[in-house]
């Protein structure tokens, strides 16, 4: 699991079956100092409450497909928590 900062939203009307109603957000992965690291990704919002500016943690690959209901929704990244604080 990694940390990331939500930097935007994505709206797509035409989607494959299974993705209806799923919210997509642009997430910039960050390093342990919360500085941007790597390429932004599009992640499904599995907590249904994340928004731009927030620090989140997310899962990738098969674990992302486990995060949404019903299971095995075809996504490759999913936000599973909004971070209140990080103490490093």
């Amino acid at each position, binding site marked *: 699991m990694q940390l990331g900062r939500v930097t935007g939203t994505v709206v797509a009307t035409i989607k494959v079956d299974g993705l209806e109603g799923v919210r997509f957000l642009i997430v910039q992965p960050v390093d*342990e100092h919360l500085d941007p690291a790597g390429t932004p990704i599009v992640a499904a919002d599995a907590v249904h409450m994340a928004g731009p500016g927030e620090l989140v*943690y997310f899962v*990738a690959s098969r674990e992302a497909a*486990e*995060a949404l209901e019903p299971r095995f929704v075809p996504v490759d990244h*999913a936000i*599973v*928590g*909004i971070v209140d604080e990080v103490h490093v």
Partner: protein
Amino acid sequence: MKVGKVAGTVVSTINHPFYDGQKLLLCHVLDRSGEPDGYTIAVDRVDAGVGDTVLIVDEGSSARQFFGLDTGPVRAVIAGIVDEVEFSDG
């Protein structure tokens, strides 16, 4: 599995139901010389603390076994506290 060092804590109140009540730690992953090489957020199952060297399971299906679940959006779990590790650097 990977060897890591606990560097900090992550607090989250709004999360996927799977993470309710779980303790999250930010761990540096150690390379072959024992130096930090990236990080991962891991669920702590052994009461580890900042500064501890730990054993991290970084694979989803094994991670889910710690919780006795077939499903769950989890990948990294701290499975042990390392007493001693020797890096010979290849």
